[in-house]
């Protein structure tokens, strides 16, 4: 049996946030098209303080063949089963073991000030009896080394030791809107980017219960957020180079025909250039087909002009030298762009 999994939809009214509704609609539509009959929503189905469920119920009725298994998240902790009258919706407000596809799924609703271990320990079931899957909403410390910038703090943490203790075969979590995977822990990610910090194409998970194999299915969203930053060094060819790089970035988005209109964009140029207006024009030209997110165009606040031939020559040398560094960049290291910016500040002084 295959089961679809998503989380962090953060529904508000359709009028207020149509793209979120449409993203969930697409998830349900694809779930139906793939002949799956279950969709798990691992918390934060609804946005904070939003309790109008009628539009969601209407959506569920459109897909009577799909049972939605929902747990409350930290944004909708008060969600109750009786709040939603659609027949094909199950809301688990207490830790509940449910058999799906001959496999045991432990649905663990979000409870503030509690760890997942504590919540699991309260459930009367034997984890060792048969393979099982955990569905929860919170932070997996084994994969979280950094503060979540949008929601600082620790939410219903799950620890590596818990995995060793309870040994679930797969853990499906909501809360982190990105979609990282660590060990057996998988974040499904939000089906629709909520803002410019959630960039790129979104997807949901499909779990094959026989093999516990997980695959991703892309979601056709109304909005695609992208944020591009260009670090520039003054150069006679700076415009041509920027044009090429901008085209490469756009190509990497993998847009299909007609998707350009969905793009909400943030573009920033930093560093130094010979001609600021030419840079501005180039970026305007390259990204002119797309809509900007909360701005009218590229942000050049951190871009300075230098006509000093000698300094610019040194800056070019440094750019090349940085690229040639025999350095193993790891996840804690700065990016090459950050190193270049640092070098530019030494060359040109703080601007």
């Amino acid at each position, binding site marked *: 049996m295959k089961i679809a999994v998503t989380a962090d939809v953060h529904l508000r009214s359709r009028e207020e946030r149509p793209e979120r509704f449409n993203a969930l609609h697409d998830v349900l539509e694809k779930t139906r098209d793939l002949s799956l009959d279950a969709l798990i929503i691992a918390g934060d189905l609804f946005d904070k303080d939003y309790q109008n469920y009628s539009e969601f119920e209407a959506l569920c009725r459109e897909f009577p063949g799909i049972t939605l298994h929902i747990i409350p998240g930290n944004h909708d902790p008060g969600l109750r089963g009786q709040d939603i009258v659609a027949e094909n919706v199950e809301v688990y407000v207490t830790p509940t073991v449910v058999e799906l596809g001959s496999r045991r799924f432990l649905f663990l609703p979000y409870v503030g*000030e509690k*760890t997942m*271990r*504590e919540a699991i*320990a309260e459930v009367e079931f034997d984890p060792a009896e048969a393979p099982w899957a955990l569905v929860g909403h919170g932070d997996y*410390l*084994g994969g*979280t*080394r*950094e*503060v979540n910038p949008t929601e*600082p*703090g*620790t939410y219903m*943490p799950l*620890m*590596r*030791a*818990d995995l*060793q*203790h309870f040994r679930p075969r797969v853990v499906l979590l909501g809360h982190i809107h990105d979609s990282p995977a660590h060990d057996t822990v998988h974040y499904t990610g939000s089906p629709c980017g909520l803002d410019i910090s959630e960039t790129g194409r979104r997807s949901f998970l499909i779990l094959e219960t026989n093999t516990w194999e997980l695959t991703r299915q892309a979601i056709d969203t109304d909005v695609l957020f992208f944020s591009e930053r260009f670090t520039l060094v003054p150069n006679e060819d700076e415009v041509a180079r920027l044009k090429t790089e901008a085209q490469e970035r756009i190509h990497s988005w993998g847009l299909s025909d007609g998707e350009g209109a969905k793009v909400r964009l943030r573009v920033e140029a930093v560093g130094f250039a010979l001609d600021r207006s030419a840079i501005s024009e180039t970026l305007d030209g390259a990204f002119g087909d797309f809509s900007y997110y909360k701005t009218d165009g590229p942000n050049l606040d951190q871009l300075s002009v230098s*006509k*000093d*031939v*000698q*300094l610019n*020559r*040194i800056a070019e*040398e*440094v750019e*090349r*030298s*940085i690229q040639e*560094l*025999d*350095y*193993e960049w790891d996840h*804690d*290291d*700065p990016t090459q762009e*950050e*190193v*270049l*910016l*640092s*070098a530019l500040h*030494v*060359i040109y002084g703080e601007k």
Partner: protein
Amino acid sequence: MGIRIDQIRVNRGGPLAEDFELTPAKLNLIYGQNETGKTYLIEAILRLLFTQGRKGDFDWKLRNWDTNGRILVSGIEEGPTTFGASGKKLDQLLRDTREGLSPGLSQLLVVKAGDAMLNREQPDGVGDGFLKNHLSGEGLIDSIARGISQTLIDAEVTVGIIQGANRGEIKKRSESKRKLLDIDDLLHRIDSSQELAAVESLEEDAENLKAKLKDLEQAKRFRAGAVHRQLLGLSAELKKLPTKDEVQALQHKVDEYSSRLAEKTGKEKELSELEPKAQACDWAENAESHYSSLIGEGPKTGAGNIYLWLALASFILTVALGAMGQTTLLLFSGVGVLAFGSLHVHANRKAMKTAGKNAELERLQNEYQDRFGEELTNQAALKARVDVLRKDRARAELLQEGIGNLSDKLHRSRIEIRFSFGNMGAGGELEPTDWAGALTSLRQDLHNTLTKIELLRRDWDRLNVDESQFVEEDPGTPWDATSQADLESKLDETQRGISEAQESLNGLRGRIQQEVKTTLSSWSSLVVALQEARAAALGQYRAQTADILAKIALNNALDESRTQETQRIAEGLRREEITTSLKAVGGHYTSLQRGGDGEDQELIVVSRRDDQVHLGDLSTGAQEQVFFALRLGFASVALGGEPAFLILDDAFQHSDWNRREELVSTVHGLTDHGWQIFYFTMDNHLRDLFKGAGERDQTAFKYHELTG
């Protein structure tokens, strides 16, 4: 058009007695004797136009005068630019707007205190640094390189890592990395801590055990209340039952009664056997007296006399006992008086009747035969018989008396025993045959009650609950000491496990608190604190790594540039701006080159005849001429051929009069090429030379005399 000063205003101060104001022309001569404020004026212009101090390109060693004023300069931006005491200076503005402007512009445009050399501290008056700045860009490289520490100059990136001495930036980065790793280690330890998992699980177990123990404690208190009530009931019941001693005493009485009854029965049996003999004794005594009379002998009155004496003795005894108050014995003694008296009378009567009657003898002998189964042959035999029978009769009489006494005692005992049974609740009408059963029953009741009390007391002692802690309501959990012991044992074991795990975790907690400098103790808050500390440490580490990698890469790039230094300087010295200036000023020397090796290289001027002279070896006057030419040439190079202003403070002071004329003429000629000249002097000869040159075009000349 070039860079021109349109107006100078310097407020009075120091030796400058009045505000200095000048709207300059192309050629400007400021004349003043000593102490008229000439130096003050020049230093004020330097401060207004050029960056001084650490940020400046050149240390002019200005005096500590508080100068102020305003200078308007055109040719930098659209419209004139005003320079005051604060704000951006000319050199900064030019660097921002002119490509490749070298540092040290003020060195080129200003000669102060007649010092024509470009750098007095260098043997050739110029120095490598100056040449690098203005000809090769190497000065710029050095300037940038000054932002790179020796630690990073010596460092390199190889095999994927930064390698360098553990000091400065590298040491700080290592410390940040270590901090980051420490934090990661702590996060990992929390994340994979079995102790933490165990503690939480054990704490939950402990809570469950405590809850069960609490239920049991309630059950215990409830049980204690119940036991207490039962004990009170049994104690009340016990009070109604006889004590063991009382039962024992009663048993003793019953035993005594039984013993007396048995004694009485035995005596009655013996008496029943003796009674015929007593009756036979009476007959035999009669027969004896009668027999005696019948056989001719007078009746023997011996027995009668004995009775008489016995009666008398009994009487005396009776009187004595009466005097002593012995009532019972008195009674017996009285009976004895009557009995012996009767017997005496009776014995005498018999003896009278039988005497002389032979028929009676035969009848008597026959009866004797019948009674005793032997023939009466003589009186002695009869007498012997009577003696025997008399003993039996006396015995019977004693028995009779004993039986009477026992009957009395038995009666009293029975009453007393029945009373006791009645008191003990066993019934007051019990027959002696029931007494044993009743005693057994009493004993059993007492034993049962005491046993119950004992058992309850033991229970009570084990419960050890104060009355104030009794619980009235049944908690629903039955009290079970074994379960309590078992649960307590498990709780002890669990808490030991918690303590051991916590001991290990306390170490971890302490390390985290120390690492993030917090007093928070909950694990979730410590995780957040660690994540925040990691974010800060990571930011620092990334910035430090970016800085180090940037500077190593920059140093590599600068090294690459340095390899082209010599060639660039040599090419620079051959630049047209410099050779043209040399030729224009004096005309004797036509080119410039470097001589010597390595760092000892010095500048050499080459004459038209290819004579090569070290710059330092020229005469002072010749040096003034050459340095003025070089100043002009380097300034043209620096400004890309654009003319500017020159401020010359007695720059030609040391030249001979012929050279002065040439120099003044050359300077004046420069104004035709867009240069603006400000010449400050206290020398009348030079004043006159300039005045003479200026008079040729009055509109292009301004003269200002400082009066002090």
